[in-house]
């Protein structure tokens, strides 16, 4: 009876040997903490219109505004402090990415696992719908939905979920089909345990490794997709700018030399997405037994 350590401890033991992934994880955590603490650490509340000074609009980084503090990253067209706007924007982006990812995960994994468990016509129906959906680009689906449902946080989340649950369902179906044929599932059936319990307590937990890999990639994707939709004006209202909208707003000033309005939110977005993907790569390498030697 060796290895009393938990699976998580063993996982971390292997994870920490990849320096790049550890740094990336640190970046993701740091950005997340900063975004969560945005109201506490940012110099200005960018959503409070009364707080904005139009006179300070479009000032370059390092400018000391009329309220007496330095705008380290400059200000945008409304006189918003960009650092504050980026922190608040990250907050919204991460929030929406996580919520959409979690709902897509739950919905997709459940559908995929039940399809694999029951087989037959139920499986055929669910999986054909999912195949059909996967044949459209996610961005197209999200665009159509965002246009149909209108602006706002929840319509945006609904669009992201619709665009992404199919990836989870595909992955869960593949993994669950393999688990379905294992003896421990037959053992549960011969007990007998209810289908719900077999799927949620036994099959799905064993499908987690590939689903976690998809989840890390998909959270990054939904953040990017949210930014894209917002950039196109289909995301959140102008009063609560997410990163995508900040980039869009600054876009028109790019050519007049006021690069910072677009560039800094863009850099924040890229750093976050690249960091999540680097963590995801390492997680995939560790959880995919085929890549193991």
């Amino acid at each position, binding site marked *: 009876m060796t*290895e009393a350590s938990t699976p998580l401890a063993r996982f971390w033991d292997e994870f920490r040997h990849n320096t790049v992934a550890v740094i990336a994880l640190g970046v993701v955590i740091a950005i997340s903490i900063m975004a969560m603490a945005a109201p506490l650490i940012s110099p200005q509340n960018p959503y409070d219109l009364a707080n904005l000074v139009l006179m300070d609009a479009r000032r370059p980084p390092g400018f000391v505004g009329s309220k007496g503090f330095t705008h380290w990253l400059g200000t945008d067209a409304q006189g918003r402090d960009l650092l504050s706007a980026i922190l608040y924007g990250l907050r919204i982006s991460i929030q929406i990415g996580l919520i959409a990812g979690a709902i897509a995960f739950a919905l997709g994994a459940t559908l995929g696992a039940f399809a694999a468990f029951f087989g037959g016509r139920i499986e055929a129906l669910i999986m054909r719908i999912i195949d059909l959906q996967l044949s459209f680009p996610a961005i197209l689906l999200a665009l159509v939905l965002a246009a149909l449902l209108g602006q706002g946080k929840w319509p945006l989340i609904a669009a992201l979920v619709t665009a992404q649950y199919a990836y989870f369902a595909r992955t869960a179906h593949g993994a669950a089909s393999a688990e379905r044929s294992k*003896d*421990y599932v037959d*053992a549960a*059936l*011969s007990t007998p*345990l209810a289908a719900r319990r077999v799927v949620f307590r036994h099959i799905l*937990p064993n499908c987690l490794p590939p689903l976690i890999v998809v989840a890390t990639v998909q959270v990054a994707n939904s953040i990017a997709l949210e930014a894209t939709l917002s950039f196109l004006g289909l995301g959140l209202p102008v009063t609560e700018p997410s990163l995508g909208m900040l980039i869009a707003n600054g876009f028109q000033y790019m050519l007049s030399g006021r690069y910072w309005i677009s560039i800094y939110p863009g850099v924040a977005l890229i750093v976050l997405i690249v960091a999540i993907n680097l963590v995801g790569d390492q997680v995939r390498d560790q959880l995919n037994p085929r890549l193991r030697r």
Partner: protein
Amino acid sequence: MTTAEPAMLVEVKAVSKRFTPQLSLGDRLAALLGSPVETRTVHAVDRVSFGLEQGEVLGLVGESGCGKSTLGRVIAGIHPPSEGRASIAGETVMGDGRTPLKRTTRIQMVFQDPFASLDPRVRIGETISEGPLAHGLVSRSDAPAYVARWLTAVGLPVEAAERFPHQFSGGQRQRVAIARALAMQPDVLVCDEPVASLDVSIQAQIINLFLKLRRDLGLTMLFISHDLGVVRHLCDRVAIMYLGRIVEIGPAAEIFAAPRHPYTRALLDSVPKLVTGSDELVTFKPIQGELPSPLSPPPGCHFHQRCPRAEARCRSDAPQLAGGADDGTGHRVSCHFPLAGEA
């Protein structure tokens, strides 16, 4: 029809199980358009009938691919039968609705590979208690004591409840799987090759555990195995399966001493035996030929191609499992030309 059989606890009546691979969409379209589509149906179990008496251990013996595991899974309520019915004390094991479901908890199963039959992410305690909890055999507050009781019964320390399967050896895991089945308080245990994947010294420990459980709990068991030595050691009666059919069934002592079906005879002769008395240490005689494909079993008696006694009739006419009732032992054989039963 045989008459005056004692009331059986488990009855298996004309059970068949066929596996037809699902046709792909393309094949189904082709079939719709009228092109002939080859369906490759495997007759895993072909109209098998037998019974299990209260308290007896019946060995189900055969080579791989003979359908013994499938039959075990039908009886344990994992697969619905294609035809026929398996029942325990009159209650059908698996309802025949559109989505057949097992309802009875009176038949439980132990699987061959304890590395595959325990969920690697569930602690031993929950593995054992989840069935009894789901069926109200024990309350949540009594569950830990209940788990401890069954762990003790199979010879594991009580602390095992807190551990995960990967922290145990193969033999210990098989004990956990047995405890899981027993905790459902079944009348019947279906054991599918429960010692085949274990090392010899561990095998002996598990066989002794079965002997003990049988004495202590009066369990009725269907013991599926390809290992004739193990079956002879544990079982009261033996059924021999060949390509989906039972070819011989009867008391273990009689079948091992005087088999009546040529296949049983050949199977017994093919096992290398240590003859500790004589100079020639090991004796065995292989069966000629190979197991035919279950996709296209030969007509008539399935064994005729390999049988030294086969005649023209065997090639067309499938024998029925019959005879031998007059001697009172229930020794029955499915053969047109059974052996006389000499030792």
